[in-house]
C-alpha cells in the first residue's frame, strides 16, 4: 500500500512516468474484467481505456488506507455495467442484428472459450459476480460494494453461477478427466454421462 501511495502521489504531482507505471500495472486486470463482462474485445478496450483514464483523473479521491486495485476495478465494473445497459437500450437494425454475446467467440477452440460462451448464458448478476471473483480476484465484500448488495447475496449468486456453469459444462460433455479434449460448441449428442455412471 505504501508503494501504491507513493505512486499515486507522483501521479498527482503530474509525473507522466508514474502515470504510465500505474496504467501498466493495472491495465491487464482492468481489461480482463471488461473483456469478461462485455464479451467483446473492442468494447472492452474502449471501456478499459475510459476506466483507466477516469481512475487517473480522480486519483485524488482514492482512500490511501485501502488497496488501489479494488478501487480501480470498481470504476471499471461500473463502467461495464453502464456500457451493458446502454447496449441493451440500443436499437439494433435488422441488417446489423448480430449476436453481441456470441461475437467475441466466433469459434470454439478450447475450454476457456466454452466457459466464456456459457457464462454469456447466465444471468447478468451471476456473471458479474463470477467475473469479479474469479477473474479480478475481488472479495465478496468488495463485490458487494460494487454491486450494492449484501455479502450473503454475492455468495449466493456466486454459488449459483458456478453451479449452473458446471451443469452446462457437463451437458456439453466436457470430461474433467480429459480436460484437453476439444468440445463441440453445439453438441448434437446428449451430454456425456460416463463419469456419472462410473
Amino acid at each position: 500500500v505504501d508503494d501504491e501511495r507513493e505512486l499515486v502521489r507522483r501521479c498527482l504531482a503530474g509525473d507522466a512516468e508514474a502515470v504510465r507505471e500505474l496504467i501498466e500495472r493495472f491495465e491487464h486486470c482492468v481489461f480482463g474484467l471488461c473483456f469478461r463482462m462485455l464479451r467483446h474485445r473492442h468494447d472492452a478496450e474502449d471501456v478499459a481505456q475510459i476506466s483507466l483514464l477516469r481512475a487517473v483523473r480522480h486519483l485524488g479521491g482514492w482512500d490511501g488506507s485501502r488497496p488501489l486495485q479494488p478501487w480501480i476495478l470498481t470504476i471499471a465494473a461500473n463502467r461495464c455495467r453502464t456500457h451493458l445497459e446502454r447496449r441493451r437500450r440500443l436499437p439494433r437494425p435488422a441488417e446489423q442484428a448480430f449476436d453481441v454475446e456470441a461475437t467475441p467467440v466466433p469459434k470454439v477452440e478450447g475450454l476457456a472459450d466454452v466457459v466464456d460462451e456459457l457464462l454469456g448464458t447466465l444471468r447478468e448478476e451471476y456473471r458479474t459476480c463470477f467475473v469479479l471473483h474469479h477473474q479480478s480476484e475481488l472479495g465478496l465484500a468488495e463485490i458487494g460494494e460494487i454491486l450494492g448488495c449484501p455479502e450473503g447475496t454475492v455468495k449466493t449468486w456466486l454459488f449459483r453461477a458456478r453451479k449452473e456453469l458446471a451443469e452446462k459444462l457437463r451437458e456439453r460433455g466436457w470430461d474433467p478427466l480429459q480436460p484437453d479434449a476439444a468440445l463441440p460448441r453445439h453438441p448434437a449428442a446428449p451430454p456425456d454421462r460416463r463419469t456419472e455412471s462410473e
Partner: protein
Amino acid sequence: MTRPHDAYAEDSPDRTPEFFGPLPGESPSPCPLESDDSDANAELMMTGAIAEWKAAVPRVALADRVLSQWQAERPRPQRVAASTRLRWIAWGASVAACVAVLIVATWPQSPVQPGGGNPSLAARPMQPTPSPAPSGVDAVDRVSPVSIAANESVEAGSVTTALVGDVRAAMRDLTSEAAAPVADLLAMAWSKPNPLPTTEATGERRGWKLTAPPLERINADWKPITRPLGAAVDFLLDRLDAEEHGAS
C-alpha cells in the same frame, strides 16, 4: 497482501465444500467429496475450467492511449488559468477606469490651477466663508467681527446686518436678566421632593409602592414651570420689537 480468496475462505464458515472445492490456484483435494460423485466431477471441472478461462484473457497495451489522452487533457487547466487571469486583469482595469471617471466627474469644484486646467472647474470667484460659530449663549461674543463683516457685505446686506444685531442684543439681555430666574426655577423643580406621600397599592399590585401621583394633586401642589419661561420669551420678543422700532 491477503487475497480475496483467502478472506473469502476465512469469513465463510458455511462455505459449501461440496461444490466450491479449492479456490483458483489451489490444488484440488485428493478426495474432495466422497458422497456425491457428480459434485466431485463438477469441482474438478470447475477448477480446471476456471483456470484455463482466466488465463485466456488477451493482453493489451492501453498505456500509450490512456497516457496521451491524459496529457491532452492536462494542459487545459493551465490554459484556462492563464486566460482567466487575463480576463480578471482586463476586468480590473476597466473597473478602475470607471471608478476614476466617476471620481473626476463628482469631484468638488477645485480652484483653478495656475497653468490652466479644466475650464468647467475654473472661473468661479472665491467667496469668504464664515468660520463655524460656536454654539451657546457666549458664542455671540466669540463670533469673529471680521467674518461677520464679510458675511454682511457679501450676502444679505442691511437687513441681515440689522437682524444679527438685534439677536445679539436680545441674547445679551436674556443672559443678564432672564437667565437667573429660569435657572432658579429649574433648580427648584429638580431639587424639590415629591410632595405626595407614598401610598400602598391596592388590588392586584399588592406590595408595590405607588410612585405616580394622581393628576389633580400634581396640578394643585406643583408650580407650573411654564410661567417664568413664558415671561422670559415675552421679554425677548419685546426687546426684539423695541429694537426693530428703534431702528426704523
